[in-house]
């Protein structure tokens, strides 16, 4: 992938499929396996959910995709204020799923509420 991708859209569930498609297309163009692409689709959903959980007053969700050392780095951020602590977020089932399906995932503290995660393009059995 030659450059980074950024998409922003209204923070409403009916727009989520766009983010899923963008991530899936980007991953597909980077030759991610179908399995990994499937994981990414789930992961995008959960990440968006977590950002809204963290910051329910967000009206815009921004997705940034970049390629770092063969891994896809996804950052989903909101434009509201954080109303929960990262610890509260990390206590949820969604977070369990996020961390199980990605290589690394964290809540970004600087400025906007954001979930940042990476997933590498390796074959998973």
């Amino acid at each position, binding site marked *: 992938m030659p450059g980074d991708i950024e998409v922003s859209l209204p923070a409403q*569930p*009916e727009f*989520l*499929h766009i983010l*899923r*498609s963008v991530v899936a297309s980007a991953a597909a163009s980077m030759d991610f396996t*179908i*399995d990994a692409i*499937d*994981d990414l*689709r*789930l992961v995008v*959903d959960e990440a*968006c*959910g977590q950002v*809204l*959980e963290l910051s329910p007053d967000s009206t815009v969700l921004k997705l940034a995709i970049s390629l770092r050392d063969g891994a896809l780095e996804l950052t989903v951020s909101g434009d509201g204020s954080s109303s929960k602590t990262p610890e*509260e977020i990390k*206590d*949820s*089932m*969604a977070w*369990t*799923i996020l*961390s*199980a*399906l990605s290589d690394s995932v964290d809540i970004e503290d600087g400025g906007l509420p954001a979930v940042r995660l990476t997933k590498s393009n390796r074959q*998973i*059995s």
Partner: protein
Amino acid sequence: MIVPTPEVESTPPDPDSAPGAAVPEEPEEAVVPPTTAEIADELFQRLPDAAARDELVLLFRPLARYLARRFAGRGEPVEDLEQVASIALIKAVDRFDRGRQVKFSTYATVTIVGELKRHFRDKGWALNVPRRVKEISLHVERAVSELNQMLGHSPTVKEIAEYTGSTEEEVVEGIEAMHAYSTTPLDAPTDEDKSSPLNRLSIQDDSLEVLESWVSVKSVLKTLPDRDRRILHLRFFKGMTQTQIAAELGISQMHVSRLLSGTLRKVRDRLGPMESPSADLDE
């Protein structure tokens, strides 16, 4: 694909809190209810105790169900998916190695998602994707031409989705698939010589049809009384006239005519709904 779900805005059930316990958010001073992880740890120590195993499965069932629902909307019934996820959860409980530095919830998630994906692949993706893709693109293709007529303009994805009862995402996928999976129909003329592959591959074998009628007529002939069969034989195989046949059998020509048409009717009736035997059977 995953259909947009309202779940995104609500928190999924929390696996790290005890079932039924309203979680106090300041765990500092209060009596801390044990977390799911702690409960799980304790239960794992009691394995292979059957009751502990049951409790573990029940404890993480919400996780299995949640993951199963994430795979809904792909053409498999949610109940089936939940079953696959539950079985995967049981496997995860049985296989989990406490010695490894992995939380059970992580291990279970990976196992369950893996089994769900495998379910689709087996059921499956090798077959299902082309079939599903084919179905979607067929629906989309038909909807596009029908909507074009109905609306008087090229339909939007939304219109197609409403018309076909699919989600917009599915329609987009179907359209992509139409591009990727379009194949040349066998009977479409190719550019080079205007003949279709089907034309080049096939010829009409007329003798087949004759053979078919012959086979069926023959079986009917066997069921006829001897005299009827003899008359048919003399008329159509020896080429004798009705008068000659009448002389041969010592009956009147009128009688031969009646017998012959009666026999032919019988043959036609017994041949059933097939087209009537070719005209030369008639006088």
